């Protein structure tokens, strides 16, 4: 298994849409074959359509607000000693997280397809918040599927979704988290694909959704390549790009344009509570390949193939599977993956928020936890860049409960 140079990673699949012959594909009910084929054809056309690209760039500039800042975390670097730590502050994008890129593109596509309705899943509530925002902006009616457990623990985003005029459908099956929200959203699309487009909130699901999402979030690294060259004159030899991974959409966007460079990619999964047997880290903990939500991937499951329970303090990472693209990056050794547990993420949030002007949400706090572990072991010529892809404000309640107080 090998990654080809000069070809976008999303296009490195075979005729069955499998990456490395093992990951991805379209394991879908017959009813979804045609809508997915239609979307695939439309997207293939649009990504080469200059007018569409201009439109995307226009809304990315005027609506999403690109480029997002690239800053040095001076105090954190001094405090830890060792590597120079930087952050790509993607949480400065409109809405407060990277989910806005995928949501905007999906709404633009839905408009082109002549659809009036759009539905999406959400875990942390960001994908839902952004889709509801973009839907409002582009005049589409919007429904968001969200696990009942996540509705309780991500209140600020739930309120935002409602304020944007979208309907929230609470999902009470299974673990009542992201995995069930994605299933329910797909079931809804099975029944309504004649009038409705679906936006999968991450680089998971049938192949076309992986493609659209990764293509959209790639904006992050398009900017970052320029910003890094401005800062260092070139891409530094020893540069590590750290990103949390749940479904893997922000990491794909953060790494995409660096694929053919020497930059080292480290993905950080959610290790769950300390001393718990539950986690959301299929790559770190050696889960087997299985099929979840239409795609083959490493997935937490039992011997029989029943999808396993997960646990993480961060709703956005609390997912048993992982993007087939990350499975591909892992098996080709282009990226390496590790995990941080709930406690480490909380501590990282606290330290970064105390020292710096940014305050990462619990998802990127997992990546900061790894930066905190790594930095002291490295030299000052080493560069660590963390994708700070969400703001802690949405986690205020959880943080208060766990740490007693909330700082930002």
């Amino acid at each position, binding site marked *: 298994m090998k990654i080809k140079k000069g070809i976008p990673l999303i296009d490195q699949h075979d005729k069955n849409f499998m990456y490395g012959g093992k990951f991805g*594909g379209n394991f879908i009910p017959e009813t979804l074959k045609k809508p997915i084929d239609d979307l695939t054809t439309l997207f293939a056309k649009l990504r080469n359509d200059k007018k569409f690209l201009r439109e995307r760039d226009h809304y990315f500039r005027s609506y999403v607000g690109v480029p997002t800042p690239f800053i040095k975390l001076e105090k954190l670097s001094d405090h830890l000693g060792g590597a120079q730590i930087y952050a790509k502050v993607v949480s400065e994008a409109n809405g407060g997280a990277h989910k806005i890129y995928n949501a905007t593109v999906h709404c633009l596509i839905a408009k082109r397809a002549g659809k009036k309705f759009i539905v999406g899943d959400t875990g942390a509530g960001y994908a839902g918040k952004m889709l509801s925002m973009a839907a409002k902006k582009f005049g589409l009616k919007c429904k968001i599927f969200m696990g009942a457990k996540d509705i309780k623990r991500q209140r600020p985003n739930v309120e935002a979704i409602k304020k944007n005029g979208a309907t929230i459908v609470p999902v009470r099956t299974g673990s009542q988290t992201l995995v069930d929200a994605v299933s329910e959203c797909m079931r809804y699309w099975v029944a309504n694909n004649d009038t409705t487009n679906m936006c999968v909130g991450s680089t998971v699901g049938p192949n076309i959704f992986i493609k659209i999402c990764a293509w959209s979030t790639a904006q992050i690294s398009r900017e970052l390549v320029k910003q890094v060259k401005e800062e260092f004159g070139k891409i530094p030899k020893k540069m590590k790009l750290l990103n949390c991974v749940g479904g893997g959409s922000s990491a794909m966007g953060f790494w995409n344009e660096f694929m053919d460079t020497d930059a080292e990619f480290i993905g950080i999964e959610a290790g769950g509570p300390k001393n718990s047997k539950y986690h959301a880290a299929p790559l770190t903990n050696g889960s087997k390949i299985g099929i979840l939500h239409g795609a083959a991937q490493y997935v937490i499951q039992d011997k029989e193939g029943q999808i396993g329970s997960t646990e993480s303090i961060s709703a956005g990472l609390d997912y048993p599977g992982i993007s087939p693209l990350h499975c591909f990056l892992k098996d080709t050794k282009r990226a390496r993956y590790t995990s941080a547990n709930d406690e480490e993420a909380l501590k990282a949030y606290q330290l970064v928020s105390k020292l710096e002007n940014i305050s990462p949400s619990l998802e990127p706090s997992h990546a900061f936890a790894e930066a905190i572990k790594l930095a002291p072991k490295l030299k000052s010529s080493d560069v660590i860049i963390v994708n700070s892809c969400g703001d802690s404000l949405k986690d205020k309640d959880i943080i208060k409960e766990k740490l007693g107080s909330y700082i930002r």
Partner: protein
Amino acid sequence: MKSKISLVFEKCKKEKRAALITYTVAGDNTQKNSLKILNTISKHADILELGFPHNTPIADGGQIQESSHRALKNGLKLKNVFQIVKKFKKSSPNKPLIMMGYFNLIYQSGENNFLKNCKASGVDGLIIVDLPYPENVNFAYKCKKKSINFIQLLSPTTPKNRMKKIIKDSHDMIYYISMLSTTGGRLKVSPKKILQNYNKIKRINSKKNIVIGFGITNKTIASLKKADGLVVGSQLCKTITNSIKKRLNTAKVLNKMVYNLKKKII
């Protein structure tokens, strides 16, 4: 040699009626009860579909999800599903039984191992919800070599040229999904329209046995009886749910329901 599934359709055609196909979930609500249900309803049903439950189904509605959840909560494993099939086939060797489920369980078992177990327990056919054409070509071929029917699905969204290819690759039975819906949705398309679509498929190859499923209940079944076969699933699962709540004998209640369904199409 003709398959048991073909023989059933031949018999029904002679009797000038649609075949009645039922769907229940293995292990719902216990292994013993689900076997009892199969044994009882097989007096009236022509073909039995038996779901092997998955906890992350992407095409099932609430009723079947609930049945699957009950079965899994009781600790049902795939080997138990095969045991149920084996016991059922021992008492009703000629009644076709089709297992229905999602691909991940087969993937984890290994395709060959799974088919070996199907063969050993007497499974006549398989419906794999999330393994569409052409992704299913290899697996369908393996099924054929073992004389197990791989049942292709067609839906209202399937374009005509794709339909032709799928029909060409199909075995003795094809499943037509009546409408855009998960299982158990209300019939939101008129029976007339469904039969129109059904006839379009029949015109491509009139020899194929086409069954219609999704949204079929005791209220709608009579209006579709011109089809080669009709599948009732969610209503049976819902009936099981209700009879458990009321502490009734599920097999008895289901027997009555299947009997009434049958009466409506003969």
